[in-house]
């Protein structure tokens, strides 16, 4: 009976010891796992922090870019306004120049036709004068006078 009692006692002590060792081992393992997970969590938290920082930077950049884009849009609108105004002015100027050119061309044409008419009159006058003089100098006495005069001039220049 006593043996059985001790046997059960030994078995109980061994069981208690085993349970105790198992509990220690299990706690150690759990602690290790918790530590690992904690480390992983810390790493992830760090990554999240870094990503948050990046997001912040990007959002700052985005704001800056948005500001720039707004500036550019404003400038573009301003330039567009200027361009349209300038185009309108240029069209106005062009029209004015065209009117001036047309006016000048008209004057030139008038002058040209006037000049041509004058030239035609002069040519006609020359032709008629030529004919009149030819008729007049058919009288050889007068023609001879001119010829002698020309020869006298030639002789004078030869003498000079």
């Amino acid at each position, binding site marked *: 009976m006593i043996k059985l009692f001790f046997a059960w006692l030994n078995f109980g002590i061994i069981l208690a010891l085993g349970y105790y060792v198992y509990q220690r081992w299990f706690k150690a393992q759990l602690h290790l796992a918790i530590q690992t997970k904690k480390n992983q969590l810390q790493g992830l938290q760090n990554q999240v922090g870094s990503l948050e920082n990046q997001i912040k930077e990007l959002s700052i950049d985005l704001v800056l870019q948005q500001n720039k884009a707004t500036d550019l849009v404003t400038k573009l609108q301003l330039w567009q306004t200027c361009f349209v105004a300038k185009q309108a002015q240029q069209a106005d100027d062009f029209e004015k120049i065209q009117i001036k050119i047309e006016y000048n061309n008209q004057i030139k044409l008038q002058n040209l036709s006037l000049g041509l008419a004058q030239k035609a009159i002069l040519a006609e006058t*020359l032709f008629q004068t030529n004919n009149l003089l*030819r008729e007049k100098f058919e009288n050889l006495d007068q*023609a001879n006078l001119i010829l002698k005069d020309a020869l006298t001039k030639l002789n004078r220049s*030869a003498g000079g």
Partner: protein
Amino acid sequence: MGMVNANLSIKYAKAFFNLYGAQLELADFWLIKKAATILAKNRAVLDLFNLHSEVEQLNLNRVFLKYFKLPESFSKLLTMLQKHKRTFLLPDILSEISELCLSYNRQLFFKLTAYPALSEVEIGQVIDYLEKNTNKQILYEYYQDQNLIAGFKMQSRQFLYEDTIKCRLQKIHRKLVRQN
């Protein structure tokens, strides 16, 4: 005549004159000048030279030289022009040769035109004037031209002297045109 053809004519004329220039006499000058004038006015005649047979070419050259009474030395020039199909240059070459003759003999050619007619003495006076002023012997052709109205005109390649009613009228006309 284009610049290229003009230069070519001058080259042919100079080459011919270098070879045969010394043999040419005053009578030849007049014959060359006459031939140049006639051919320049009747350029279509030059198409006759474009024959294929050499015998025909030689015969035609003989007839040509005989008609214009040109020296035999021109036969070689004609043959060469026919060979290179440049007979159309002949009037200009002859004209250049006549100019080279003048230059070689220190002479100048003038076309003297007048209305009414100049007497022999008056022509003499005009020629004396030209000889004194150019220091060269003057060769001339004299024409009477009623288109001048009255007065006389002397013209060479380089010089022009004109004292006529026609010229005075043209000067007045030009002045009036410029003023307008």
